[in-house]
């Protein structure tokens, strides 16, 4: 009892082959699109790699790139096969390859699905990576004279300006670190020394933020210093003031940005997966119908096409038995002392005479 049996006339088979040829070429294009999307994600992640701590997030774009390339190759081969399938004689060339090809493509579509799901699951790792990376970057903001960290100030400033955010979770993060380098602090001034002494680690902490936190939509000039001190500024209350600085934290802003990208990429990959699956179904029907035609002998006759020859359970059982017997060929049969030729009856029809013929003596050479 075959699974989803469909009757195919000759014209229907030919049409199916032609349609599948075009669909395979469209799949090559979608493979290229997948490759491009993977490359785009990789570039976007590398642009802000200084703000991300060491985490394994590169595997998502790498997987997409690999899947895209393999999809191109598989569908290119599929296109060639379907092009040849219109002619039954040319089909014979591909007959032996087609079933392994279909099995490989089936497992490959699983990889595509896994790639799509990975896009959605990357969010958690990314959040962790960003939280740690941003903390580090803010801590080294002042170290513009240390090689390897001299551009962090610029990176963080540009980030805050571009993504309209301030600090890690909010602007108060800047109050807890020293973001003004000691090179620009006048240690001879009493108020500087007092501030340094006022905390355990000897850091110059202040309730001020860098200029890149300033909100351009604010109606008044930016208040960066003494942000929590209402009396330091005229007509200012820091609890109700929302337009002065960017309120959003940079971790959330970056996460939203990357989640948007990955959701669109994930959706595209899911659609590609569905498309690949439908193309694969078409190729399977084409293969089974052509094989049945060859079995019947008449190339112009009607034939049946199906997904699986027997029911699902039967097919699973048969395949498991094949795999088991593949394993059995390696076992030694101890009943016959390991010799497979003992006690095998002769099937030869020729009569070679009696068995106990004494050997001829060989004349000694003189």
């Amino acid at each position, binding site marked *: 009892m075959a699974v989803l049996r469909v009757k195919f006339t000759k014209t229907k088979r030919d049409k199916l082959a032609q349609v599948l040829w075009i669909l395979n070429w469209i799949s090559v294009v979608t493979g290229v699109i997948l490759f491009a999307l993977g490359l785009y994600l990789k570039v976007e992640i590398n642009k802000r790699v200084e703000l991300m701590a060491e985490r394994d997030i590169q595997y998502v774009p790498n997987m997409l790139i690999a899947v895209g390339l393999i999809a191109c190759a598989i569908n290119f081969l599929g296109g060639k096969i379907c092009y040849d399938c219109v002619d039954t004689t040319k089909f014979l060339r591909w007959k032996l390859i087609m079933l392994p090809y279909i099995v490989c493509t089936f497992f490959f579509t699983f990889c595509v699905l896994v790639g799509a799901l990975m896009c959605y699951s990357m969010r958690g790792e990314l959040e962790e990576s960003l939280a740690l990376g941003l903390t580090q970057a803010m801590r080294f903001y002042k170290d513009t004279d240390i090689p390897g960290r001299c551009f962090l100030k610029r990176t963080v400033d540009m980030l805050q*300006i571009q993504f309209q955010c301030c600090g890690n979770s909010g602007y108060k993060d800047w109050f807890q670190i020293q973001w003004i380098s000691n090179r*620009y602090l006048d240690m001879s001034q009493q108020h500087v020394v007092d501030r340094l002494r006022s905390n355990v680690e000897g850091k110059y902490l202040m309730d001020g933020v860098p200029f890149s936190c300033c909100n351009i*939509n604010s*109606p008044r000039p930016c208040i960066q210093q003494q942000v929590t001190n209402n009396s330091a500024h005229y007509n200012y209350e820091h609890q109700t003031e929302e337009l002065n600085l960017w309120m959003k934290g940079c971790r959330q802003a970056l996460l939203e940005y990357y989640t948007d990208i990955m959701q669109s990429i994930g959706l595209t990959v899911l659609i590609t997966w569905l498309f690949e699956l439908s193309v694969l179904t078409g190729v399977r029907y084409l293969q089974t119908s052509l094989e049945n035609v060859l079995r019947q002998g008449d190339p112009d006759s009607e034939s049946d096409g199906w997904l699986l020859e027997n029911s699902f359970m039967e097919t699973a059982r048969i395949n498991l038995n094949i795999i088991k017997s593949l394993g059995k060929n390696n076992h030694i049969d101890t009943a016959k002392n390991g010799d497979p030729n003992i006690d095998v009856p002769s099937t030869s029809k020729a009569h070679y005479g009696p068995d106990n013929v004494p050997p001829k003596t060989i004349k000694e050479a003189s």
Partner: protein
Amino acid sequence: MVVMKMKFPFQKRVKLAQGLWLLSWCATVAGATTFTLGCLLKTELRRRAEVMDNTDIHVVPNTLMIVGLASLGINYFASKICQDALDAGRFPRWKNFLKPYFAVSCFFTVLMLLSVIMSYAMKGSLESSLKAGLRNGIRFYKDTDTPGRCFQKQNIDRLQMEFECCGNNDFRDWFEVQWISNRYLDFGSKEVKDRVKSNVDGRYLVDGVPFSCCNPRSPRPCIQYHLTNNSAHYNYDYLTEELNIYLRGCREALVHYYMGLMNTIGAGVLSIFILQGSVLVSLRFLQTAMEAVAGKENTEIETEGYLLEKGVKDTIMEYLDPVLKFFLLKNGGKVEEGAAADKPAAVP
């Protein structure tokens, strides 16, 4: 006196017609490109319309768009004409069309060249427009509560951050303007009152700049206020400090940006002009060569093609005569009226 006579055997005519057909389709695409380039330039100019005082510079993209659309039509007809050119039966129907067609095409092709020249010539106009616009923008920076000006602060801040510039000529323009609104000044404090009294107009002037002038590349946190006061900041010398705020003026930055854009567009339009010119010249040769064949029995004879039948001056007069006659007629009428008006005045 014929201008540029050339001999055209039959095969050469056929090749000319085929080459011209291909060339005219390329020129159609080029015409569409010109239109797109004009749209691009206009969009870019409109994006910064708030810091421009007048829209004189918009004549460049407008001309490009008109020329682009016109060249689509010109090249469409050119391809149709050269398709019919080799067919002796169909070519005569274009006879009356060709003279005005060439006049119009030459006009628009010259207009294309003019637009490129204009884009270089109007640099001064752009600069003065930006100067006035930026001056107003800086003056109204503080008026975030006045309707019609409430977005000036945002626009100027965004402009300074995007183009990495500060002020009109340079950052000192901010010292001459009150950019902090009175709403945020405590008139009860002595410092504010002194500063307001210290100048004739009663403005609160500071030697400070808005935060959008800050340069992110600076190794130290941004110094916005007391810029010219070295003792107000530790280890700071404003005469040698180059990385703290942007030193370039926004007018220079914007002019540089737009000139770069117009140079690139101008180079493209020049090459399109050469293409269009070659289409018209080839079409003229084909037309004159085919006209000599008309009426003859053997259509495969060798003919001569030329650019202009008479000399350049005579041809120009020939085309301008109808236009001048139109105006002269008006003038002639005016002269007659004037004479008629004089007569009754002279009588009494």
